[in-house]
């Protein structure tokens, strides 16, 4: 995977997360937590997209792995989208160096932490 491919994958992953938060964020008990996470994802998306000459465009809709029909399902969905970003950021870490790699690892750590915050158990290799 080239560096730009890894960056583009992060942008696509963040766009999916932003979509999931926009749907599920209002349905979880931790509304404030969801809002700050959504803001963080938007900022992260913007930072990584800035490194691409032609960043991917967001889709108008995404297939969600879990339908957020209840507060518990909404939390499960948000945990899943956070965990899904960990390997994507790990790929960016692998493809990058120095400060960009550092930021990618920190992003992976924050996503895995948020997933646990939404109530799922930790994983050895989050995905």
């Amino acid at each position, binding site marked *: 995977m080239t560096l730009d491919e890894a960056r583009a994958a992060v942008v696509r992953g963040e766009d999916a997360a932003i979509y999931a938060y926009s749907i599920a964020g209002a349905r979880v008990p931790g509304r404030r937590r969801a809002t700050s996470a959504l803001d963080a994802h938007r900022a992260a998306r913007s930072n990584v997209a800035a490194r691409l000459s032609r960043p991917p465009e967001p889709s108008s809709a995404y297939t969600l792995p879990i339908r957020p029909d209840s507060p518990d399902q909404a939390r499960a969905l948000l945990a899943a989208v956070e965990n899904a970003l960990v390997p994507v950021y*790990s790929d960016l870490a692998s493809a990058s160096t120095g400060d960009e790699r550092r930021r990618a690892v920190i992003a992976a750590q924050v996503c895995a932490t948020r997933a646990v915050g939404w109530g799922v158990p930790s994983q050895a290799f989050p995905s």
Partner: protein
Amino acid sequence: MPLLAVAACASPADSAGPAAATAPASAADEAALIEQYDAIISAFPTLAIRLATIRDQHAAHLAALGGAPAAPGTPVPSAVPRTAQEAVTALTAAEKAASVMRLEDCVAATDPQQARTLALIAASEASHVAEMAGP
């Protein structure tokens, strides 16, 4: 055309560079964490349910880093906390330190595959900190 003399070739250890240095250090840290967990689970069986799966994740990290667990009968760390609460506090601090060290190990890694593995492990350790803190 005469060949230019080439400087002394690097030894395999030199050419592996920080990646070779990083993997054993990361693996040693994971092995030490496992020992710490085992000692605490032994001393506080009531914590076993909470800690055993995290401990097993560290075993998976160790295997991914090419390390092996300490041989049975290896002396355990002498200082086990006095109470279960202190034990959880100690493990939380250990996970926090591990998440920082794995981040640094990843940044220093020269092998991209190892960097990817270390990034995933760093994320896992960070999530352990949150998990120890409880709901």
